[in-house]
């Protein structure tokens, strides 16, 4: 199942800030490691002692249930000591600055910081100021590397290889950190990527990225081997990006009726949580084409892999 590894193959950064610029071999290395770790999740005793004595803090400045639980589970499966910090009820709401928070973490000798923040660049801000390993759990509309990694792991399990695969990312691209990380990762592994959504939700300069852009969902469905359907933040309608959710569903919603028109049904992915009846119809979400729950399982494996690979202390090579 797992090929013999090339000795010395490893991640070149001690942090995981994003997938931009990460070579395909490193991404594959993380996915291979995740594959090897997945088995632990099916054991009667779902725990290995690997990260005993390693302290991880989950620093969530923005509400997130799934990502935080997934990281927490990964940390527990690896026997790390973990602490949770979320914005509500913490000193941040009392006006403590990010810099103070960072300095406190440093003083507490935390080994690994998993950070989610509404502002892009915050993981890098912490990496510049802390000795801890920083793992980006989503920074604003910038990157969400572990989400893209779990999406790619799911694709690899279903299709065997990502090279040459056609993946369409559908929906609110402009405000999505999932889209950007997926674009970088999928391109590094040799996939073709299409972005599909209304022009108001396409990022500026999308045309200059190495991807296709289209505004016709039927075209995207017939082109793609897999659709990654993004969550539509409901407040986008209020901010004027969309006339109505109803119209969005009619124009870009993934429905059985639409899928059935395609010669071959694409695989359906969704980073969750889903707005059923908006970007995706329940019948699709619960169908055999949907791998939404596999994504959740893979999320734990991918996060375990990242933690295992990055938690080894830096050895000064002479």
């Amino acid at each position, binding site marked *: 199942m797992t090929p013999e590894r090339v000795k010395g193959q490893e991640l070149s950064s001690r942090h995981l800030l994003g997938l*931009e610029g990460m070579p395909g071999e490193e991404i594959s290395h993380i996915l291979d490691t995740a594959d090897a770790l997945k088995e632990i999740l099916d054991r009667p005793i779902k725990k290995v002692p690997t990260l005993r004595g390693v302290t991880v803090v989950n620093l969530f400045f923005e509400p997130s249930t799934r990502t935080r639980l997934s990281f927490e589970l990964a940390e527990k499966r690896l026997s790390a000591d973990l602490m949770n910090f979320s914005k509500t009820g913490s000193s941040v709401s009392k006006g403590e*600055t*990010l*810099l103070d928070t960072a300095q406190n973490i440093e003083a507490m000798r935390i080994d690994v910081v998993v950070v989610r*923040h*509404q*502002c*892009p*660049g*915050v993981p*890098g*801000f912490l990496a510049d100021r802390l000795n801890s390993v920083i793992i980006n759990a989503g*920074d*604003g*509309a*910038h*990157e969400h590397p572990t989400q893209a990694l779990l999406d790619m792991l799911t694709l690899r399990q279903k299709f065997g290889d990502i090279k040459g695969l056609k993946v369409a990312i559908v929906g609110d691209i*402009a405000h999505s*950190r999932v889209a*950007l990380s997926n674009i970088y990762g999928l391109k590094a592994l040799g996939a073709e990527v299409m972005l599909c959504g209304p022009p108001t939700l396409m*990022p*500026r*300069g*999308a045309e*200059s*990225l190495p991807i296709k852009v289209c505004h016709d969902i039927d075209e995207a469905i017939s082109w793609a081997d897999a659709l990654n359907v993004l969550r539509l933040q409901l407040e986008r309608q209020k901010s004027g990006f969309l006339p109505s959710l109803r119209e969005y569903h009619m124009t870009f919603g993934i429905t059985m009726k639409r899928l059935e028109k395609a010669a071959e049904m694409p695989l359906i992915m969704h980073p969750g949580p889903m707005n059923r009846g908006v970007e995706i119809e329940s019948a699709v979400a619960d169908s055999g084409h949907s791998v939404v729950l596999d994504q959740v399982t893979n999320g734990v494996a991918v996060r375990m892999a990242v933690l295992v690979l990055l938690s080894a202390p830096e050895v000064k090579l002479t």
Partner: protein
Amino acid sequence: MEPIRLPKKYCLKGARLIDPVQGLDKAGDLVIENGVITEIGSDLSAPVCWDMQGAIICPGFFDLHVHLREPGFEDAETIRTGQEAAAAGGFTGMACMPNTEPTLDQAGVVRWVIQQADGFPVAVHPVAAVTKGRKGEELTEMVELRETGAVGFSDDGSPTANPEIMRRALEYSLLVKAPIISHAEDLDLSRDGAMHESETSTRLGLPGIPRISEDIATIRDIMLAEYTGGHLHLAHLSTEGALRAFEEAVKRGVRVTAEVTPHHLLLSDKAVEGYDTDTKMKPPLREESDRMALMESLKAKSIQAIATDHAPHTFESKVVPYDEAAFGVVGLETAVGLIWDRCVDQGVMEPADIVSIFSQGPRQVVGLSVPAIKAGAPMELTIFHPEESWQVKTEEFYSKSINSPFKGWELKGRPWGILKDTHWAGRVEPDFK
């Protein structure tokens, strides 16, 4: 920095004297007596002399756009520290923006600023607010403000969205004979943007400020200036679109002038990669094509002034995530060195053009008299060494704030300080023998 009282009579020897207005550009000596230039020539003598071999002496530079933060935000800058930064950067005068607390919308506050600046050789000329409280609703008492000493009017940072207000302000500018300085930005289009909207903002995940936000506001204000005949001055022009609109308006005979900043001339949106909050300002750093267009306009001499938009901010308001950081960068102490290094050394401008764009150009925009190097002129001079190599080190700044995107840059050419009336103020000590 303490100003140093100069001898009653002295000679500045051997510097290169540049005054484009007088058609002067040659090495020579100056004799100054009681703060007035009395003689220009060679082999002049006086009781004491300062050997300035290798330096350039030129009419004092003027910064058309600074924020001195006082009153109200003295932890970022005070009038005095701003003056010290100006002297160290080679400026003998500057126009300060009204976004203080209280805002400069009443004669009393404007008078207070002028009095506060008195006693240090750098002249401070307040720009008063266009509307009361800079709220974009009611005009300020522009006539009284002008008489008190305001040299222009601006709601810098909070441009009015209401074209009717802008129209009346431009009409009033005819009465008060001072420009309306436009921070041209459509705030609805800028929304919550943190940087220029481009492929780079997409890659960084930062909300964008589209170029049309500046283009549209610029074109609106130009049309209002054309209709009213009022004098419009475009602050910190940054897009190619706004530049074209400006150049076409000038051709049509509209009374419009413009300034550009060193950061828009020398940096593009790529500088934001890495999320250094000292690259965050308004208007944001644009694309390379905009930067090149601005550089070309310098060559073509269509722009009147280089102004720094010196905007000090405390450490606390900059060491935060990019999105949450304050807009603005300091510039008084780097502008001249940057422009000399990147423009003269690279053939964009002649030394005389630089002197012109820093001394004559900005003063003409606000109707101030231009200092001169000629016998009988009151002394107001900038001393500058074109060969001095230095590195921008924020710990050496006289400004209270260190938010410079140019930290660490290696430059050639650096101001020493200024001579104004009877005093010297600057980075280096006078060396009279």
